[in-house]
């Protein structure tokens, strides 16, 4: 039998997390990511792990805070309204410099919104979300295989920099089924000398906390953390470049929007329009330099999003507004068709 399995995106996240050594999952069910919790509920007891359905999203994220403080790989998952509830805890985790994985399988908003796919939590994920000066490492998968691969990557990056990571998917990615080869992960034992695991009377006790009584100490901590953010921006940017070599126009899209856009790019090429695609895989750090370079090459950009236009602001910033950036979007759970994206590419080509 082939070593591939047919998985839902949500299942791929769960199994990949287990492969990455995560043995602690806390969550509260919400469509369209409930399969993550259901899968963990089935698997964790069989491998000596913890699955706990918390009484609320707020409780779940604080359980994550606790296990992260003890230095173990830990995750929670939810969908948009549930991730909003978690924001206080996420800010505390960031403020205490703890590694953890938060998965957001986005649905339409604001408010209770709907259960259909969306990318309208881009601002929340990439600009902080909770209070205070902080960032999450934000990874955006565009296939079920990437749901697995980037889950593992997120744990690694989070441990490496002591920065919480977010996997930002959407309802379509969570529900679609594709073959996946689950990699065997060599989970290296990462030294976590800061973890709260008992001193055995052999050392001074560690403190995990985000409260600073002296403002100068808090400022110093924030400066130090931003130095780590700078390193992440320098070393960890990930993106896919598709047909950009000779491109005169550039589509920027992530996740499900990128898959649709790829089909539109190919259709446009068939019509003789030289267009390419840049797909940010890390949404934070955003592939700023790649977009900046593209701005010197192409006549204009199209930002394709399942939102009212959020990433478009980063495309404009990265390109220093050198070239026009058009928006092709659907929202509220609707998905743009390749034809809609193609029409927007044609509009850009006709006007530049």
């Amino acid at each position, binding site marked *: *039998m*082939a070593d*591939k*399995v*047919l*998985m*839902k995106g949500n*299942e791929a996240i769960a*199994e990949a997390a287990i492969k990455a050594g995560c043995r602690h999952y806390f969550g509260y069910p919400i*469509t*369209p990511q409930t399969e993550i919790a259901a*899968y963990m509920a*089935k698997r964790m007891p069989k491998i000596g792990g913890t699955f706990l359905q918390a009484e609320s999203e707020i409780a779940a994220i604080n359980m994550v805070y606790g296990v992260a403080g003890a230095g173990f790989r830990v995750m929670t998952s939810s969908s948009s309204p549930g991730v909003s509830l978690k924001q206080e805890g996420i800010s505390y985790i960031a403020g205490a410099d703890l590694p953890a994985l938060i998965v957001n399988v986005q649905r*339409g908003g604001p408010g209770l*919104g*709907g*259960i*259909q796919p969306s990318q309208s939590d881009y601002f929340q994920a990439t600009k902080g979300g909770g209070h205070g000066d902080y960032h999450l490492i934000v990874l955006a998968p565009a*296939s079920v295989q990437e749901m697995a691969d980037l889950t593992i990557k997120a744990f690694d990056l989070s441990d490496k920099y002591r920065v919480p990571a977010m996997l930002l998917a959407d*309802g*379509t990615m969570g*529900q*679609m*089924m*594709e*073959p996946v080869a689950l990699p065997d992960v060599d989970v290296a034992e990462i030294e976590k000398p800061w973890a709260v695991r008992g001193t055995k009377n052999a050392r001074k006790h560690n403190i995990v906390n985000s409260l600073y009584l002296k403002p100068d100490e808090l400022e110093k901590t924030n400066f130090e953390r931003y130095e780590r953010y700078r390193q992440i921006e320098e070393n960890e940017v990930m993106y896919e470049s598709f047909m950009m070599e000779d491109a005169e126009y550039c589509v920027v899209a992530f996740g*499900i929007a990128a*898959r*649709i856009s*790829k*089909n539109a790019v*190919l259709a446009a090429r068939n019509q003789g329009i030289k267009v390419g695609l840049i797909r940010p895989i890390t949404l934070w750090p955003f592939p700023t330099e790649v977009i900046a370079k593209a701005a010197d090459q192409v006549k204009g950009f199209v930002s394709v999003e399942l939102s009212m236009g959020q990433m478009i602001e980063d495309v404009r910033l990265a390109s220093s507004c050198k070239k026009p950036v058009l928006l092709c979007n659907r929202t509220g*759970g609707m*998905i743009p*068709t*390749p034809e809609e994206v193609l029409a927007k590419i044609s509009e850009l080509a006709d006007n530049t």
Partner: protein
Amino acid sequence: MQGLTYKRVSIFCGHYGSGKTNIAVNYALRMKADGIPTKIADLDIVNPYFRTKDSAEELEAAGIPLISPAFANSNVDLPALPQELYSLVQRTDHHAVLDVGGDDRGAYALGRYAPYILEENDYDMFCVVNFFRPLTKTAEEAYAVMQEVSQAAGLPFTAIINNSNLGPHTTLADVAATEREVCRLSEMAAIPVRMTTVHRPLISADTDTPYFPIDLQKKYFDIVE
């Protein structure tokens, strides 16, 4: 493949993501093409994302009435079944195809109709299995799910459908590789394997195929190769 004999009620159950909806739709279309008046019902109140209703146009074009939850394919995640469903099990002038939700959680919805189905006693209850799914990779795992589903539904399974696949890129060799597991499952459960499905393009040239050809629903976000 050879002609099929149809029971008055055909029920499709199994692990979630095993392909129940797709097979139920293909089976109903085949039944209708064989000249039998057919209705299909969506009993899946567990997963609001993939449903029989996605094939509504195709079913309508074929003259197969679809009974689905009132809020299917909307933002209302309301697990309620329409009352017309009783007509499918109580009136015998049509053949009925029932597409049930995944796992035991999905199968509970079938329980309220089980007494009528058992009383009429002219039904097939198929266990759809895909050995490429991560939680049903072996006969033992599939059998465990089967027992949970059967208990929740209040109905015993009558046959197995081997729907082992890896999506659109499945090869015949992939399917053949699952033959041994499905035979073991058949022995364990003491029920026959009714059919093995294969994506139609793989066997379109072969009129003598032992496989049941199925069409997959094309999604516009499928990656262009």
